[in-house]
């Protein structure tokens, strides 16, 4: 009996040891990489479409794709933890070139795929628009392939505008302000205008206002420019519009899901937002105003209509991946002309020139949205947030005057403060 106890404990110990040895085991087959590709994607219409087409890819190549799908915030937390630990169990990563591109590049998280992009002649790297390509290039090395592009457009409610006596959407920012007031007066209980209000979330949508007023985040010499008269005007305009014509008791934490909800619940007449989110407003399952929503090009400011036109998502390969060759095969397939065309038909604008100019690709879109997006693509600015390594911090700094303008504080003074803090961040990064 006693003897059995001693042997038993030895067995338990041995089992524990061998178990811990197992957990460290790695995939079979070195050199060529595993047959299984670990792909991490964000929740997006693009992802749904790719997911549906996956069996095709698996059949063609004999590879297996293990897909992880996460919300935006969870995705960046995952990357933070896993990439910091140097994990090899991420192969293909869907990331935001403008948000994380520089930081990932600097940290060496993204694999150099210049050779792959050059080597694939049929796939044709030259077909991708130069702006997005610039955003997925870090220090002259290609580190990602842009998959989704978007521009800012004006969403509006045709029925409410009609009621207020308008037959067409506003063409300039002055007209927008006037129309927001009139529509609000003609439709009690409905706000004239809504947009994102969160300090960080609003920055990207505010950027089009900033550019259209003639402002910049930083000037050409790399100095913070968010306190120029143009920028101050833009802050006051954006915040003032929400303060004066937005919903009562407006929250200052809204990102697109909250702002979109107010619009699709029928509680606002005008809404400026990314074009790629239009399905949320036109899908009757998600929107009460699906029948009456219209789209227009971003209104002109003193410097013209200058919305952002950016690659919002890209695919890259984890530098620590042991399966790079197969990871590239997945990217090559997912960004091929066929997949891109299929995705574009399903409502996701791409960065491929040949697809963008294909009339067939946009046949399913609302016609006014196609025109609005084309205008954005023609005059657009290639970035919608400060181009730095520490994007999250910078967004909070330059976003503060937006929130201050919404809550009725002195946004001019706040812009001066923001410029100082932003300058300190720029100095720190350029040291």
């Amino acid at each position: 009996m006693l003897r059995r106890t001693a042997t038993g404990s030895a067995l338990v110990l041995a089992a524990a040891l061998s178990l811990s040895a197992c957990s460290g085991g790695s995939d079979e087959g070195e050199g060529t990489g595993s047959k299984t590709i670990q792909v991490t994607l964000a929740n997006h219409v693009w992802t749904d479409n790719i997911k549906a087409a996956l069996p095709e890819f698996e059949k063609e190549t004999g590879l297996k794709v293990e897909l992880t799908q996460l919300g935006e915030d969870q995705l960046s937390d995952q990357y933070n933890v896993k990439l910091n630990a140097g994990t090899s169990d991420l192969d293909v990563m869907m990331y935001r070139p403008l948000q994380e591109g520089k930081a990932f590049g600097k940290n060496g998280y993204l694999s150099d795929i210049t050779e792959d992009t050059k080597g694939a002649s049929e796939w044709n790297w030259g077909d991708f628009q130069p702006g997005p390509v610039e955003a997925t290039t870090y220090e002259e090395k290609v580190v990602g392939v842009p998959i989704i592009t978007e521009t800012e457009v004006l969403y509006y409610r045709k029925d409410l505008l009609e009621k207020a006596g308008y037959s067409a959407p506003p063409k300039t920012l002055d007209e927008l302000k006037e129309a927001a007031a009139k529509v609000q007066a003609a439709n009690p209980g409905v706000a004239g205008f809504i947009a994102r209000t969160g300090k960080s979330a609003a920055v990207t949508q505010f950027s089009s206002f900033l550019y259209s007023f003639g402002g910049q985040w930083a000037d050409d010499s790399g100095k913070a420019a968010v306190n120029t008269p143009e920028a101050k005007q833009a802050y006051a305009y954006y915040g003032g519009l929400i303060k004066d014509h937005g919903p009562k008791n407006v929250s200052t934490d809204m990102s697109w899901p909250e702002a979109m909800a107010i619009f699709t619940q029928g509680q606002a007449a005008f809404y400026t937002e990314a074009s790629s989110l239009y399905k949320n407003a036109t899908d009757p399952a998600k929107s009460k105003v699906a029948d009456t929503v219209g789209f227009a090009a971003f209104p002109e400011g003193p410097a013209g209509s200058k919305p952002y036109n950016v690659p919002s998502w890209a695919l890259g390969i984890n530098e620590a991946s042991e399966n790079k060759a197969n990871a590239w095969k997945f990217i090559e397939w997912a960004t091929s002309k066929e997949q891109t065309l299929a995705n574009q038909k399903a409502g996701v604008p791409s960065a491929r020139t040949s697809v963008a100019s294909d009339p067939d690709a946009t046949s399913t879109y609302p016609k006014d949205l196609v025109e609005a997006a084309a205008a954005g693509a023609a005059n657009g600015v290639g970035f919608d947030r400060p181009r730095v390594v520490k994007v999250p911090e910078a967004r909070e700094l330059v976003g503060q005057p937006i929130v201050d303008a919404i809550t009725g504080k002195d946004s001019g003074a706040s812009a001066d403060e923001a410029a100082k803090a932003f300058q300190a961040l720029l100095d720190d990064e350029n040291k």
Partner: protein
Amino acid sequence: MSADALPVTGTSGFSRWANDHRKWLFASPAMAFVVVLIIFPVAWTAYLSLTDAEGSVRADKEFVGAQNYLDVLGDTARFWPAVWRTVQFTGVVLLVEVVLGMAIALLLWRPFRGEKWVRVAILMPLVATPVAVGMMWRLIFDPNIGIANQVIGWFGIPEQPWLAGPGSALWTTMLIDIWQWTPMVVLILLAGLTSLSEEPQEAALIDGASGWQRFRFITLPLMMPTVIVAILLRGIDALKTFDILYATKGKGGGSYNEVETLNVYAYGLAFDYNEYGTSSTVLIIFFLIIIGSMWALTSRRKAEY
């Protein structure tokens, strides 16, 4: 054969060795657990707090000594307001939860009809996931379409901004925390109450003590150890509250950092700004604050009893 070893008849060297070192062998899983999951992370955090680690923890980092501590302790824009919010949040929810919890526990103490159902109903908030709770209250407190403003409207109270107001957000999150965690205090106190003996109460009744006197001079002193346990458990949890704050106001605790406590601040530093050195510093200071306040609480208890 050493004195404490069991008689082993086997010849295998390993069984003999294992038998001689029983105490180490059996304690080793627990010790390994403590080392891997408690000591190592704390030590690593302490080390990072002395470096300028940022961007990636695997990137080159320099040893900067106490510089991070000086920076953090001198930061009046984010750090000290976060400390104050943490103290405010913990103090208020702890006070309300213990007083309210005691009142509810006293009500539930004596058997009554339908007791089972009432107890189940009171425990409901406790079993809900905090993030789901946060989402739910966010809808309830929505300033435009939420039900909270409608309900108070029936009583003629003007609409409140709730979570959306820079001044009211922290108080609203406290309300949510109280709603969710008072049941736990009730549970602990009720367990203490049911273990009290009846005699002192009866004696006091015969002596003509009023209900309040019986509570103040008999029930409460006898309950003190249980109350301290409840305060300790709830206090540590309240200091570390993260899920409710994050689910209702997001990263940074809102656009004005309205509900940014130390925990939310440290999370933002690590996951948003990727400033691991500074984040570790905040966490170590926070760790010391928690240990300090718990030590103060328990040492007072020892002195009293």
